[in-house]
């Protein structure tokens, strides 16, 4: 009887820790996120790295200048061509080699095709993270066609090692131009399908709008680059500000959106796909004739000094910093990877939101984990 009057225990909330990953489908790789949750609200988020650390920078320092380029394809494997291009440009800067005009055109074509494949894969996986399965297959349909072109012209599908100091490894096939033109027409049609299927979808829009807000100041202080930063209103396209390989002659827009949220990041990437197609269309009809590769010595030796080259990959700014002591191997090689900086934005934009929004934010930041760890 005496227990009747005692108060019932108050409703208590308690923080608890959930590990997302390292083997979680929506982290797109072996990234472990240690999330402290209060109910469904994220209180703290701690990314744990190192599950796929291979020491690429150190491995590069034990290989010759021509040899280490194949390793950089394995960092951001969706921008393999662009990574190779960055290293080649840095080495060419040291050697003072003039790249033939044909090689430059081929490089831009391949780099923009690579950007297309990367953004298409992102589009599919972004929709899949948010619960739609069909877009994944539609995205892979177009990506497969581009990868076929890579396979026919470079010999590999994913880790090409095609762009090399002095130019490109082999010449493009004679049917490259016609095949690419027919493909571009198809891709343009398919982009409209993407718009009806996902962009216009009300569920998709509501899941992204106002979610994962990354203010411009924060994007600058965290060192975000690429579409992630451009969606926060930060104009940072390396192709515009530090043009390389003849981007200065091309007419293309730098896509900047002011929404700062996941929806803006989605819109920026969709628009960048159109710009990539626009760039390809400008070059495809007038690829210069001539050599595709400048002659280099068998063993390349860079003069003593420091060389830095930045390029715009599909995810942001990739910097290659080479210190040479005059030998046939780099004394020090530092790679500034775009995903590492972009990962830093994940905590500030998700803390305070619900756990379902974490996936939306992660999907639109578009992380590639091997690039974070290197």
């Amino acid at each position: 009887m005496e227990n009747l009057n005692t108060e019932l225990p108050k409703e208590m909330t308690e923080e608890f820790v959930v590990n997302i990953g390292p083997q979680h489908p929506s982290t797109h790789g072996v990234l472990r996120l240690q999330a402290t949750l209060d109910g469904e609200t994220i209180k703290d988020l701690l990314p744990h790295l190192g599950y796929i650390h291979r020491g690429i920078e150190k491995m590069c320092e034990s290989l010759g200048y021509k040899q280490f380029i194949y390793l950089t394809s394995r960092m951001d494997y969706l921008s393999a061509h662009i990574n190779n291009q960055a290293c080649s440009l840095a080495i060419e800067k040291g050697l003072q080699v003039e790249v033939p005009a044909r090689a430059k055109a081929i490089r831009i074509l391949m780099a923009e095709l690579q950007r297309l494949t990367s953004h298409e894969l992102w589009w599919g996986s972004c929709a899949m993270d948010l619960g739609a399965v069909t877009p994944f297959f539609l995205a892979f349909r177009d990506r497969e066609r581009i990868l076929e072109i890579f396979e026919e012209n470079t010999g590999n599908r994913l880790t090409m090692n095609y762009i090399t100091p002095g130019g490109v490894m082999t010449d493009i096939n004679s049917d490259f131009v016609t095949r690419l033109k027919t493909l571009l027409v198809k891709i343009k049609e398919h982009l409209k399908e993407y718009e009806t299927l996902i962009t216009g979808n009300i569920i998709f829009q509501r899941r992204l709008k106002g979610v994962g807000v990354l203010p411009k100041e924060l994007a600058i202080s965290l060192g975000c680059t690429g579409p992630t930063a451009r969606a926060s209103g930060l104009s940072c396209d390396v192709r515009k500000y530090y043009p390389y390989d003849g981007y200065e002659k091309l007419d293309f827009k730098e896509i900047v959106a002011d929404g700062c949220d996941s929806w803006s990041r989605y819109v920026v990437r969709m628009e960048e796909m159109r710009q990539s197609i626009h760039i390809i269309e400008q070059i495809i009809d007038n690829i210069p004739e001539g050599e595709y590769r400048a002659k280099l010595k068998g063993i390349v030796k860079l003069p003593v000094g420091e060389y830095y080259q930045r390029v715009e990959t599909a995810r942001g700014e990739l910097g290659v910093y080479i210190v040479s002591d005059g030998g046939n191997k780099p004394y020090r090689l530092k790679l500034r990877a775009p995903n590492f900086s972009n990962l830093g934005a994940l905590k500030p934009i998700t803390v305070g939101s619900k756990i379902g929004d974490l996936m939306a934010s992660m999907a639109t930041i578009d992380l590639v984990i091997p690039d974070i760890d290197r």
Partner: protein
Amino acid sequence: MRALIQYIKDVAQGFYSLSQGLLLTLKYFVRPWKHIVEQYPENRTTTIYIPEKFAGEVVLPHDENNRHKCTACTLCEMACPNGTIKIISATIEGEDGKKKKVLDKWVYNLGMCTMCGQCVDACPQDAITMKNSFELSVYNRNDLIKVLNKPGSKLKEKES
């Protein structure tokens, strides 16, 4: 009242946007020839298309007289970033009494090869090429280590 109208508008727009997507799915449903199907593996010996340049493995082509072009200069061995290639050369006495370095074994470890093409690029004689073969997995790891020059093969002398 205004909020209610806005709400009904939103619902109608939502249904419209969903129906657009579903219509696209339905279009693909009734047009099976537009489906995305990559045929494999039943066609792997018949109709499959592997591009000529596809880098499957390194080969040392021999001509009809069992001759190859390799002079055992080991440039490919030096160019390989992974230590895939091992060239074992032998010294023989030529017809004119001069000592000559010839290829004994061209050892290729497929398990360590990343198909980067540096060896083909480095070869001054164009002796090695990439072959567009696929499905190269084997049950025993030692089977991956291959000797590329055929037994009894000789160097193809340059026609001068």
